[in-house]
């Protein structure tokens, strides 16, 4: 039997010790009508017979080859970056890979110290005071940040959140799905069609009653929002500031703690660009940092440094009175399992790249995007849409339907970008493109040539 080590003799002696005749006897407290027998009326008709590892390997290699290895210019929340070989070699060591949540701290110092190092790195990258040990992903981290802001903003007591349309559409949908049952509403804040950012002039001067303003950075179009002005406006109107960031971009761009006069209050976002493969969308991890004053409102596991009986430094989960296993219905969130292994990879990734490495990767990604936009907009029928600086993504407009162009490109094994038709119909045939440091000049040329071919053929 796969992964069951029992010999016939083991089974016999164990049954004898228990004092029953068969394994089936051990299920005698379950009403007979509910029990299925493998030989008779098995409920597992749709589960195929088991296969040896070699056959399953063959099956999976076949499935993998169906998906190929296209040249990818899609970003939209998941980004292709170089990951040093050492990152996943170490991360998948059994001692990290197959350990449980570090509830027995003395037997989990490896995971706990690593998390403390992660918290330090993430807090430093965002400039914030504290970080937790991860949430599920970027989108759900925004939902948790919204719940946290409503709890934390005791002055406003509002359950309304100002949510820009420049925030990733799936982040907005996820947040709405998670917070709406608690009576929290997301009020849309529109963007400027020329610039692709929230025009500060569009913000009212009315005294607001919002618990928080969400600021995506870079925003979904790749564009850099006017973070200082937005932050100060929110604080002047009694709202907290929730920054939704790409942490890689913070290797290059101003940290949320430095936005405006007082800085962002809560920072969340997608940790994937720091050492986690795209892998069909997960597992990734949601990051969350905040000001010290808000730490008791933060959801998720947090590691603290303390001492043992001999006064020797050690690490342990702390502030557990926020969490569901202690506080039950009064917990800050229901989250239990987080994304520990992805954080392990990310910590090793950041340690290998260092601040300078992250900055170079971010700068090169930005420069490649600039190059790509230049090459593509040189084609007759392609133009740039927004006139504000952007990080490693940009929006271009095509004179042909985006869906058709993307299909043609896919036939040449190029994934040309993410269509904005569904979420931003006002932008027409708009395409969100991305280039990271993994693309070289030949890749960019190749994309431009194929796009040129498509436009020439028409």
């Amino acid at each position: 039997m796969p992964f069951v080590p029992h010999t016939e003799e083991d089974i016999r002696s164990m049954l004898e010790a228990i004092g029953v005749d068969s394994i089936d006897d051990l299920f005698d407290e379950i009403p007979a009508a509910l029990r299925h027998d493998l030989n008779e009326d098995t409920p597992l008709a749709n589960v195929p017979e088991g296969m040896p590892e070699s056959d399953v390997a063959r099956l999976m290699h076949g499935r993998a080859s169906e998906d190929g290895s296209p040249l990818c210019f899609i970003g939209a929340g998941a980004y292709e970056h170089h990951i040093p070989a050492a990152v996943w070699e170490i991360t998948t060591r059994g001692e990290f890979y197959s350990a449980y949540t570090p509830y027995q701290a003395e037997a989990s110092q490896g995971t706990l110290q690593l998390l403390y190092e992660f918290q330090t790195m993430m807090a430093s990258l965002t400039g914030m005071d504290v970080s937790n040990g991860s949430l599920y992903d970027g989108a759900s981290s925004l939902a948790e940040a919204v719940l946290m802001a409503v709890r934390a903003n005791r002055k406003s007591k509002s359950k309304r959140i100002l949510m820009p349309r420049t925030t990733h559409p799936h982040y907005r949908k996820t947040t709405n799905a998670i917070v709406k049952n608690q009576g929290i509403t997301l009020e849309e804040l529109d963007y400027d069609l020329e610039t692709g950012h929230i025009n500060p002039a569009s913000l009212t001067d009315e005294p607001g009653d919002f618990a928080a303003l969400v600021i995506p950075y870079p925003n979904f179009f790749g564009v850099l929002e006017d973070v200082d002005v937005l932050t100060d406006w929110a604080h002047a109107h009694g709202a907290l500031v929730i920054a939704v960031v790409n942490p890689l971009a913070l290797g290059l761009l101003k940290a949320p703690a430095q936005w405006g006069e007082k800085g962002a209050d809560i920072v969340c976002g997608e940790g994937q660009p720091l050492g986690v493969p795209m892998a069909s969308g997960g597992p990734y991890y949601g990051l969350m940092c905040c000001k010290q004053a808000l730490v008791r409102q933060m959801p998720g596991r947090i590691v603290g440094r303390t001492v043992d009986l001999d006064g020797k430094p050690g690490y342990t989960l702390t502030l557990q009175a926020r969490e569901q296993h202690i506080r039950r219905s009064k917990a800050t969130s229901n989250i239990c399992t987080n994304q520990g292994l992805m954080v392990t990879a990310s910590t090793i990734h950041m340690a290998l790249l260092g601040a300078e490495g992250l900055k170079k990767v971010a700068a090169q990604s930005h420069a490649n995007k600039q190059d790509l936009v230049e090459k593509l907009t040189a084609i007759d029928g392609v133009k740039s849409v927004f006139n504000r600086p952007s990080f490693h993504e940009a929006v271009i407009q095509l004179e042909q339907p985006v869906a058709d162009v993307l299909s043609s490109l896919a036939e040449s094994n190029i994934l040309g970008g993410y269509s904005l038709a569904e979420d931003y119909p006002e932008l027409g045939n708009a395409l969100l493109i991305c280039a990271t440091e993994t693309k070289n000049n030949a890749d960019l040329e190749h994309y431009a040539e194929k796009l040129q071919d498509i436009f020439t053929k028409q």
Partner: protein
Amino acid sequence: MLIFEQSRPGRRNPIQAPAKLAETGAIPASYMREDSPTLPEASEMQVVRHYTKLSQLNFSIDTQFYPLGSCTMKYNPRACNTLASLPSFLGRHPFAPESHSQGFLGCMHDLQEMLKDVTGMKEVSLTPAAGAQGEFAGVAMIRAYHDANNDTERCEIIVPDAAHGTNPATAVMCGYKVREIPTDANGDVDLAALKEAVGPQTAGIMLTNPSTLGVFEPEIKNIADIVHKAGGLLYYDGANLNAILGKVRPGDMGFDVIHMNLHKTFSTPHGGGGPGAGPVGVSERLIPFLPIPMVTKEEDSYRWLTEEDCPQSIGRLSCFMGNAGVLMRAYIYARLLGREGMHRVAEFATLNANYMLVKMRDAGFELAYPNRRATHEFIVTLKKEAKELDATAMDFAKRLLDYGYHAPTTYFPLLVPECLLIEPTESETQEELDGFIAAMIAIKKEAEDSIEVVKGAPHTLPVRRLDDVKAARELDLTWKPHN
């Protein structure tokens, strides 16, 4: 030593980043970062050595018996990791078009179908990222169902006092009040209390079966009738699905919605705290409300189901489809096991647990529910040892670490004093179980002869018992250069 303390200014790994700092003139200076974040400056070898050494401070399934109750710490087959990490799978963008996704989507579709079959539910969505998110999805669907029927007075979720903390926390996240009901002396739901609790305000009940007390709830059909008659729905917390996998199906018990913990039952790794995967399955009436995206098969190809296909869906729970890589590992595990292997999981998990139960009882340990069979786990209460020898469940747990065994779950469920919740899983040998029992007997003897050895444990680990009070009072959550 922390990685930061091994840093030297100017130490770099030049092969891991672009050689030159690229031009960023298009970004105004006011947007640029002026300071440099405190990240390590260490060589690749230093980093590899540091994290390898850190890993060696952990207990894990790959290195120790880990009988952590309710967590199903069974062997995580290496093939699942290797095959889920094939380059095409790791490199696939979540928004890749269906033309470049048939291999991946096929795996996800097959997994959905298998999970339907194993649980007896009518439809499955794979998207919840972990058990707690599966719970959220389940209760949100219950709410959406009542709302769709204009049945808006239902404001309570019933939760037994033995439930996981995630259950009441989830009910609150979905905007419900929590009504707790007691457990009877046998470890079952108190039926009289349940009958009293249900009414027009009841939205549903959240149950784990086998329960967190390690016993199968035999009155489950009755419970389902009582709740359904009151107009409520039944939620199944799949934390303990390993006990009945392939033998008993939640769908047959009358549940309307369930979540599975694939990081338990389908043996994907716990990774030091995650990631998990918490797919949800539903009965007929909740199908329209399932979270998106899901995968469907049309003729010979697979495609995503989104908002347009499922207008009544409770919506999205994460940016993409959840923890796809975990789902891939679960799929590979299911293909390795096959139908017979899956059926045997519950059998051997139950055999191991009952063997340990009998051996522990014969060694003089008190069982919380002595008249019941173990399911895949069981509870020992050390209240006698705590009272007579001053050796608490915590003391036994810490001393077990010295013997090379991870401790069972301690102090949960909350209603059994000084408890150890022990779950051996099917992948452990009889010798390993015997070794653990011998250690428990030895620790009891130590407690009788020299209690300080037990109270002072662990003695052989990287640190001794940690000061949790200091950790919470004098918060030190990040390293700073001066401390």
